[in-house]
């Protein structure tokens, strides 16, 4: 029984280039300038304008005042901050899926690694302010652990934690990627392998004996205390100012990551990546080693995911193994699909739209939202394979085709 080799392109399916490649359009200098201006405006809005609207127009405390009409409430800004950290993760995922054609179903895992690193740091900072008033995190006390395990020790230091947030997921991705890409596992098999990885890690993290909080995860975060040049400043997470600051940091990271990814995709490296997506064997025959390139982007996307997780956690207040489940990873892929594969803006857009929709539907259509989400999956995949970014192009093509048909008849 010979199977048809599963691949992205096969003789019978229509040759659909699942990306709207913006590259050639940007050779037009007018487009390039306006795109750049658009980018600057967007960055300004995200980083400066929106937080400003949280500061001005605040309601006066202790009164019934609801604030100015343009005031962005703390809840909304916080929500937006979390969405932006998702967008950061989406950038990394788009880099490996949209541009390199690697479907990884364990991005949520790397997100959680970063999140847990940050969570561990925050738990240690809570220390004596916790329920049991001990230096050990709460869950260790009810787990009858008397001494802080060795692997928790590094997380006392802020900068070390920052380093680990990037290092841990990257290292993990590097090892896994090294073993996998070298054996030329790709496509569907790779997706299933990442599923297995996510599932087994989820099982492990759920165990209380791992000393990572088990299914309850880590919670009860109170403050961040970074040390600058030997001087420690305390930022209490319950203060709106601190949450605003976290939002700004997230937005900055998003802009920076976007620029980084843009630079990569525009470079020659980016070309090789797209080539790998389209036809890996030919790239190999041309003398490149695709495994190295794939390893690089996989590790980079893991690092981005880790940073995203670390930014997400102080804004949410809890990190649990539930966030690294297979379902969570698959949901992340759909953000990219909705926004538009292979376009970085599409990834950000998709992440924001889908998550905003999720929040909205669970409030207003409680119990029906899975239908909406499921339909979204199916509709996006079948009807708009290039996502929302590619929608105008798709409509244009359709119009062109039907007008062409009209002409020949």
């Amino acid at each position, binding site marked *: *029984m*010979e*199977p*048809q*080799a*599963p*691949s*992205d*392109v*096969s*003789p*019978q*399916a229509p040759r*659909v280039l699942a990306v709207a490649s913006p590259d050639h359009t940007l050779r037009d200098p007018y487009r390039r300038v306006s795109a750049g201006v658009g980018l600057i405006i967007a960055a300004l809005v995200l980083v400066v304008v929106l937080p400003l609207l949280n500061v001005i127009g605040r309601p006066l405390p202790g009164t019934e005042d609801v604030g100015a009409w343009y005031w962005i409430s703390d809840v909304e800004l916080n929500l937006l901050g979390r969405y932006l950290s998702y967008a950061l993760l989406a950038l990394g995922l788009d880099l490996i899926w949209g541009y390199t054609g690697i*479907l990884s179903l364990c991005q949520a895992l790397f997100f959680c690694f970063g999140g847990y690193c940050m969570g561990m740091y925050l738990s240690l900072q809570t220390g004596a302010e916790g329920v049991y008033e001990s230096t050990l995190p709460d869950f260790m006390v009810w787990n009858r652990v008397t001494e802080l395990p060795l692997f928790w020790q590094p997380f006392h230091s802020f900068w070390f934690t920052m380093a680990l947030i990037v290092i841990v997921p990257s290292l993990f991705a590097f090892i896994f990627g090294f*073993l*996998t890409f*070298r*054996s*030329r*596992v*790709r*496509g*569907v*098999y790779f*997706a*299933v*392998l990442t*599923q*297995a*990885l996510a*599932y*087994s890690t989820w*099982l*492990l993290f*759920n*165990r209380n004996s791992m000393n990572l909080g088990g299914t309850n995860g880590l919670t009860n975060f109170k403050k961040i205390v970074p040390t600058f040049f030997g001087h420690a400043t305390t930022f209490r997470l319950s203060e709106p100012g601190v949450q605003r600051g976290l939002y700004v940091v997230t937005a900055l990271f998003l802009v920076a990551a976007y620029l980084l990814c843009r630079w990569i995709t525009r470079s020659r490296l980016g070309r090789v990546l797209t080539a790998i997506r389209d036809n*890996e*064997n*030919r790239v190999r025959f041309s003398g490149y080693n695709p495994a190295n390139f794939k390893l690089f982007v996989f590790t980079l996307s893991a690092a981005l995911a880790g940073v995203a997780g670390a930014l997400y956690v102080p804004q949410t207040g809890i990190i649990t193994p539930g966030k690294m489940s*297979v*379902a969570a990873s*698959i949901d992340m*892929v*759909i953000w990219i*699909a909705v926004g538009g594969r292979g376009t970085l803006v599409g990834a950000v857009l998709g992440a924001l739209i889908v998550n905003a929709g999720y929040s909205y539907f669970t409030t207003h259509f409680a*119990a*029906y939202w*899975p*239908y909406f*989400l*499921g*339909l*979204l*999956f*199916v509709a*996006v*995949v*079948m009807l708009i*394979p290039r996502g929302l970014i590619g929608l105008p192009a798709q409509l244009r093509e359709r119009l062109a085709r039907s007008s062409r048909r009209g002409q020949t008849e």
Partner: protein
Amino acid sequence: MRSSRQLSPLAVFLLFVTPAVRAQTAPPPAVVQQIDALATDDGTAQRAAVAALGESGDRNVIPTLEALREESLYVWTPPNGTRRMVIARDKTTVDDHEQYLLQDAYGGARLHQADGSEISAPAEELQEVSVDRRVRTAIQVVLERFKLLDSDPVVRRAAAKNLADKGDIIALEALAKAQAAEPDPAARTVIDEAYNLLKLSAPSDQDKLAAISRLGVLRSADAVPRLEELRKTASPQLQAVILPTLDHIRWWQKVNRLLYAVFSGLSLGSILVLMSLGLAITFGVMGVINMAHGELMMIGAYATFITQNWFLAHVPAQAFGFYFLAAIPLSFVAAGAAGYVLERGVIRFLYGRPLETLLATWGVSLILIQAARFWFGDLTAVAAPSWLSGGIEVIAGVQLPYNRLFIIAFTMLCVAGVYLLLLRSSAGLRIRAVMQNRAMSASMGIATNRVDAFTFALGSGLAGMAGCALTLIGNVEPDLGQNYIVDAFIVVVTGGVGKLVGTVAAALGIGWLNTFLELVTDSAVMGKVLILVFVILFLQRRPSGLFPPTGRAVEY
């Protein structure tokens, strides 16, 4: 129903009431006295009466004691008659009032009027005799002694076991008598064991010695804790015998565990095969990643649930057990139909794009799960048919449950069936042709679209049957599929995409490996995690699985 509170222990004597009672074997007055003595608040007195009834050896008190245990024994005060003890369980309606049909406390026969009609009484005339847990335990022991002489050997065995647990020296005699008269060898062994366990508490060392040696020969697991206790206070002579006996029994327990693990692994492996067979066809043969595979299993499980309910409502109780046999083809059809619709509606447009199929089918699975939750609520009960409950005791201590044996046999049938279909039938020939070379098959006149739909429906139907079988060991709930989908994929990928023998081999291998890892690490979670790690590492070495697809297809 007022519980008995004002009756004095020995004050009630039987008088025949005006409505004549159909004559029974006349109950001996001593027994009758004891039955009446049951109607008291005093637990100690009740236990004494129960013990006395047990001593009497009169089998007619069995219904009495059983009723007492269930709290269906009452003191009946008819309006113009004297009090007597009755059993009241079944209800009837007389002139729009609910009344209880009365049974004789001694013997349990229904009471009838002189004209033959059944006597019934309203709740006001009946006073419940209540018992606490200690009395219930005492009743249990007495009943077990009676059950030693029951006609059914299974009952006799269970009775002997229970006596060993809860009984006392008094039971020794009964056990000795029973053993001598016992025709069934398995029952004889159990009675032997029970007898010797009780004998361990005998005063003389000689008796103890005999009991210990005998228990060693019988390899009795229940003896271990008692021997441990005994060891602390025994004489050196006894100790010399106890220690090797303990070692021997413990060794045998290890062997038991090992044997059971082998069965357990086979059972787990067969479940994996069943889950993965359908997926092997859709994924392996067609290259379609169907994340809704778990939900197709769920559809099969719900089909079983619906069949069960239909049988409950429309079929007499005796034939209820057959619902399961009817459910198997029904779940195949239901899931197959769903699969057909899925293929025609969604997957057909996504051939050659496996990653898109993954996402689209995931969306479908979300919808299906929520729809199931909406229609059926969250937990639905599927009762295993009686012929599949319980198990068969192969060796002492190793009981192989029937439901798992059934699943193993069922799996083998399915695999054989699929093989026959694919290799021997013309439909199978067409399927294989389309999968090997679609263009050529189309040129030869095979309707490839229809073959695709049929193959997918076949895979889905198999998933449905797996769901049906899984109701025997698990829940029927909307999330059913989510628990199994990752495992199923791993099995198919490890086995080698495209080869059914690979799937079967991988499933059995993973099943056994998982069971033994669980045995060795003594933790269910670690077993699972290690398996996944092993699979990941295995796929590094052999990326195409155990039985890779042959051929020189270049992935491009």
